[in-house]
């Protein structure tokens, strides 16, 4: 039960963060539906008004689909620990994200876990990289 409470509290925080962006996330994404994506980063765009990274994800049928993951803006990311080098092409990652309501392979990032265990979020990165 204690774990359940922690999860609910964390959920409130992570779903609230995208509200700090420049357009309505509720209009774009369904935050009640999370997708888990395992794959390889193909591109990291450190651009305004939102940074994005793209990743190839192999489906159950063996087909590879390229997903677009949206982050906060670089100014906000920098203030919260991200660097323009936090992700790079070829990184093997696991992303949890809210998919776009239009059903495309577009999603707002909740967390992305790197191979070394580092966990980054829509806007925040850990103070010190995981070792």
């Amino acid at each position: 039960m204690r774990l359940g409470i922690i999860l609910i509290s964390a959920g409130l925080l992570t779903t609230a963060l995208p509200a700090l962006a420049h357009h309505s996330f509720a209009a774009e994404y369904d935050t009640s539906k999370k997708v888990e994506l395992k794959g390889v980063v193909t591109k990291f765009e450190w651009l305004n008004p939102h940074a994005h990274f793209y990743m190839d994800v192999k489906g159950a049928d063996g087909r590879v689909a390229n997903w677009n993951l949206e982050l906060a803006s670089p100014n906000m990311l920098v203030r919260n620990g991200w660097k323009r080098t936090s992700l790079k092409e070829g990184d093997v990652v696991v992303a949890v994200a809210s998919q776009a309501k239009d059903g495309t392979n577009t999603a707002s990032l909740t967390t992305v876990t790197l191979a070394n265990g580092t966990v980054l979020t829509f806007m925040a990165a850990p103070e010190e990289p995981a070792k």
Partner: protein
Amino acid sequence: MIRRLVVCLAIALTVFAQAPAGRGRGRGPTTPAGPTPRLPDGTPDFTGVWQGGGSNSGDISKGLKPGEEVVMLPWAEKLMKSRKSQDDPQANCLPFGVPRGAPYPWRIVRAPADGAATHMFILYEGNIHSYRQIFMTGKHPDDPDPTWYGHSVGHWEKDTLVVDTVGFNDKFWFDYLGHPHTEKLHTVERYTRTDLGNMTIEVTIDDPGAYAKPFTTTGKARLQPGEELLEYICQENNIDLVHVNAPAQLP
């Protein structure tokens, strides 16, 4: 058990509500304590980088003075209900206008820095990376061209900087819900640095073209010690709006 859950949820909400907007995981600087700093002429010194202070960016009708309400004229209500999120000017990298809050820091610059100010400038990191100018001498032109930030004149009332603005265009939205306004909009902002780390900004909104009566919002800004404005060029790669295909709604 339910009580424990309620307490935990309350703590989580309180922690988030108190975190400076635009910051994650409580990594922002601590708001300093102390008296309101003053310039040699006795006026409050607004120097510094600030966060917050606008109206409720989701719904301007939240946070009004007690007893007040937002009463839209029928055409304005109809327009608001027809609006789509992807058409929100700020989502399209256009200015917030006045007094919509932004999740980005801002700075007030007085010119000249010493002596009687002729101008006050508000520098916005976003949204958009722009500025407002407040004329501390002179008055409004008779027939100003409608613009995003309007024509602002300022004066001091004791420790409060009062900014009177007319000449707005009707393009920006007051909030994510799409509350509209007309070129008749007249705002009066009252900036009061209540102590070293805090500023209260009260804004009276009077637009007889869209609202039955004026209303007043109050925002709180906090000083961000050691912070600087960063570049934020929204137009650089604004590729997401194609997916924002829904009625105007809260963020």
